[in-house]
């Protein structure tokens, strides 16, 4: 099911034969990401401890499995919010929307349960319809990655979509954060969605250069685009509902600041990669830019403010965000990284994720 392409000779012959199975990818495409010199896993490359350099070599399957963990998280969040079910269960609402019922076919690692979450009592058509659309699309991403990875796919890990949110909201400094629930109403759902979307963009962006099979790269680029559409959707909607930044739009700044802090810790003290900066996250703040005159602009995109290129995070940075710092402890990458959304850590192949 994987299209294998050869671009060395420039002919890029396309092949999507069934015979080109993922096992070939796994065995043939191992890339020493450290050799790329473009910031991937820069933190680990610094040799914080000696064994990390060896561990920081991922196959395409590893990278796709990392993405699959994130898609499990996102898809379950949106399914619960939109339909009130997890991704492996269908109900009339999910069926009506065309959301796939996912067969949890991944077996690598330890299968876990999903806790927390409930259907949001939406009252506005835009937010409800966006939630449903996003659920369907994230479900299809899970389906796609499970299908592509086949027997190499990781199991759905333990996922906490309940108490994780108030913990994160408290850490971010959102007012009354300890009682925050993204399932309470339309506005709070958008804030919950905001937590994930830009992170997905940075994770796929960071992973893009690690993939060795062109067809995988093309697919990752396509998913990256969809995650950025989602992120744009969420930011746009929050901007429409709170144009002056007095409530939910101001929360985006708090969340982005927290994410940037966790991401920075994930760098383990070394400089960010070339398409990452410190800080590497910005909410919907208004700032000044020089066009034909000095004007104000609202950060519609989560990108560096000079080149306007979206940030790229390595796996440790992403892990540190979704585990609330569990990926880094006392300046060292830990494995397995656990906490917040992944109470038992992500599921990984033999190379693990740090």
């Amino acid at each position: 099911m994987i299209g294998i392409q050869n671009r060395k000779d420039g002919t890029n012959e396309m092949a999507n034969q069934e015979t080109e199975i993922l096992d070939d990818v796994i065995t043939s495409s191992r890339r020493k990401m450290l050799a790329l010199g473009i910031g991937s896993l820069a933190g680990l490359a610094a040799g914080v401890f000696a064994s990390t350099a060896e561990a920081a070599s991922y196959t395409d399957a590893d990278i796709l499995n990392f993405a699959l963990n994130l898609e499990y998280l996102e898809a379950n969040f949106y399914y619960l919010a939109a339909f009130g079910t997890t991704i492996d269960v269908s109900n009339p609402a999910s069926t009506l929307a065309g959301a796939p019922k996912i067969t949890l076919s991944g077996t690598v690692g330890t299968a876990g349960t999903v806790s927390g979450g409930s259907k949001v009592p939406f009252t506005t058509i835009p937010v409800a319809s966006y939630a449903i659309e996003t659920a369907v699309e994230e479900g299809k991403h899970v389906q796609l990655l499970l299908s592509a990875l086949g027997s190499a796919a990781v199991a759905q890990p333990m996922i906490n979509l309940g108490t994780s949110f108030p913990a994160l909201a408290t850490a971010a400094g959102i007012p009354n954060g300890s009682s925050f629930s993204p399932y309470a109403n339309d506005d709070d759902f958008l804030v919950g969605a905001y937590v994930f979307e830009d992170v997905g963009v940075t994770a796929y962006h960071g992973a893009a250069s690690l993939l060795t099979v062109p067809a995988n790269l093309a697919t990752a680029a396509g998913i990256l685009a969809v995650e950025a559409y989602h992120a744009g959707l969420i930011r746009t909607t929050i901007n429409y509902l709170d144009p002056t930044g007095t409530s939910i739009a101001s929360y985006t700044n708090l969340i982005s600041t927290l994410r940037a802090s966790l991401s920075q810790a994930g760098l383990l003290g070394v400089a960010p990669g070339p398409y990452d900066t410190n800080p590497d996250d910005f909410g919907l703040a208004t700032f000044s830019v020089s066009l034909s005159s000095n004007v104000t602009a609202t950060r519609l995109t989560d990108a560096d403010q000079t080149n306007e290129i979206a940030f790229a995070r390595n796996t440790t940075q992403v892990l540190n965000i979704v585990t609330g710092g569990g990926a880094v402890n006392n300046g060292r990458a830990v494995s397995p990284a656990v906490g917040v959304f992944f109470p038992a850590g992500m599921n990984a192949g033999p190379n693990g994720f740090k």
Partner: protein
Amino acid sequence: MDKLTELLNRAISRRKFVAGVGVTAGATAVLGLTGCSSSSKSSVTPVAYTDADVLNFALNLEYLEAQFYLYAATGTGLQAADTTAGSASPFKTVGTVTLGSAAAVPGLTAAQQDILNEIAYEERAHVRFLRSALGTAAVPMPSIDLSFFGPLALAAGITKVATGAGSFNPFDSFDDFLVGGFIFEDVGVTAYSGAAGLISAAGVAAGYLTAASGILAVEAYHAGYIRTSITGRAIAAGSAIAYPQITAANLVEDLRATLTVGDSAAPSTSGSVETLLTLPTNLNTPSAIVAASPTNAVGFARTVNQVLHIVYGSATVGVSSGGFFPNGTNSVFAKTTA
């Protein structure tokens, strides 16, 4: 005028192409979908190219986007220093901008103005980034025709009830601006997706791929803004009749699908690289903000030829200029080859 006639003729039959949305995508192998699209292009593009040529092609598109958004946001375009030819560029002549009705969009709220400023700033940043990355190889800005929105809208079948056919102007109002932005944004996303597969292994190692991926993401943020805004404002208005811009946007998609049939590469022949906007009227149906495969929700890729057909406003193979680029693009890819 020949171009306009051609556009109109093409527009007449557009529906049959759009009817095939999703069919081809559904028949395409899972992970191979976008790979097929991007790989086809390189095998049918009979020109030798370098990574710099790929980035310069993107630069042509960024010049166009930057001029559109800068005029819409501020009433002025790129500064001369942002349009010059690098010393090693085979293209030497800096083009001119045909303004037509281009002007700062009137009647914006403060929040809308801040977003327009942001998009304009970001597109200019992309121009500057690519020019910086290309150094002496950077091509100059080609001639750009911002008055092409009128003929394009006419070909798409967009009519304004109050002022009649042919009067569409994206600089008239915020809502019409959204339609103007809609013409470009999904195309920019798919152009970068398609271009990613053209970058050499050396270019990947040099960081070009990561840069292109990051710009791709920003273009998708923009597209998300445009599509979310049109959808949300249509929902607020209550119907497509009350908010004709949603219909206009879908007519643009129809036209884009029609124009790209000149490229025989799948999946464009069925128009399946378009996702029409929908107008949800209850709490139980999805919107269609994201433009992506209905099968696996992977974003589309367009070939260089497909992009050129759209910005030239011509489905004809062998065309080197037209539409938004009256003198063509400053690119080795300038002529459509499929």
